[in-house]
């Protein structure tokens, strides 16, 4: 099972409201956060844009691909866009599986592929001071 979403709202401490399989032995939650510097400059926030429609489709495609490849139970992802302050989450991904190895591999591949093909861009940042 795959679910994906893109939002301009805050997604910190996001809870995916999806039931677990009774034979789920591993759950892995990844949170990608906005760091306090970008290209050596101290920043206050990062601004993300996305290609609405395609970004969701592409996230879902990659999600399905890793489910098939690693036999995990499910992958759920929410990506925030717009202006994201430092320290807040840009992405939260949940993977559930029977065993932990598959969860680790699926999460790692999902993030690697996302960073190659999903049409989301950091288009600027708000710097501190000045």
């Amino acid at each position: 099972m795959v679910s994906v979403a893109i939002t301009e709202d805050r997604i910190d401490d996001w809870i995916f409201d999806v039931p677990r399989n009774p034979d789920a032995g591993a759950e892995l939650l990844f949170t990608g956060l906005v760091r306090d510097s970008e290209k050596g400059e101290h920043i206050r926030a990062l601004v993300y844009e996305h290609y609405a429609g395609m970004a969701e489709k592409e996230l879902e495609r990659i999600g399905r691909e890793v489910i098939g490849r690693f036999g995990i139970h499910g992958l759920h992802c929410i990506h925030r866009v717009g202006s994201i302050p430092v320290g807040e989450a840009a992405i939260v991904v949940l993977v559930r599986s029977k065993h932990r190895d598959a969860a680790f591999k699926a999460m790692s591949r999902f993030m690697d592929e996302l960073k190659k093909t999903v049409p989301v861009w950091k288009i600027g940042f708000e710097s501190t001071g000045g």
Partner: protein
Amino acid sequence: MSRRKTITVTVKCFSSARELLARDEFQMDIPEGSTIEVVEQEVRKLSSQLTNMPFMLALNMEYPAEGTLVKEGDELAIIPPVSGG
């Protein structure tokens, strides 16, 4: 000798491509029966800075397979290197 028929597609511009072309999207006329590779060449001719810029061209919100034919009304998008997550 009939003139070759043209079709019209929409091209969306994101990130650095939008900055370069100074627009969110535009219409483009291309010869009927053009493959995605032919369209990419046409797009690269729009600006000297686009010529060697790394980007992918999406077709109807997917990355098309090689040789895919572009049709009237299709939505294309210039996808510069992504940086999500």
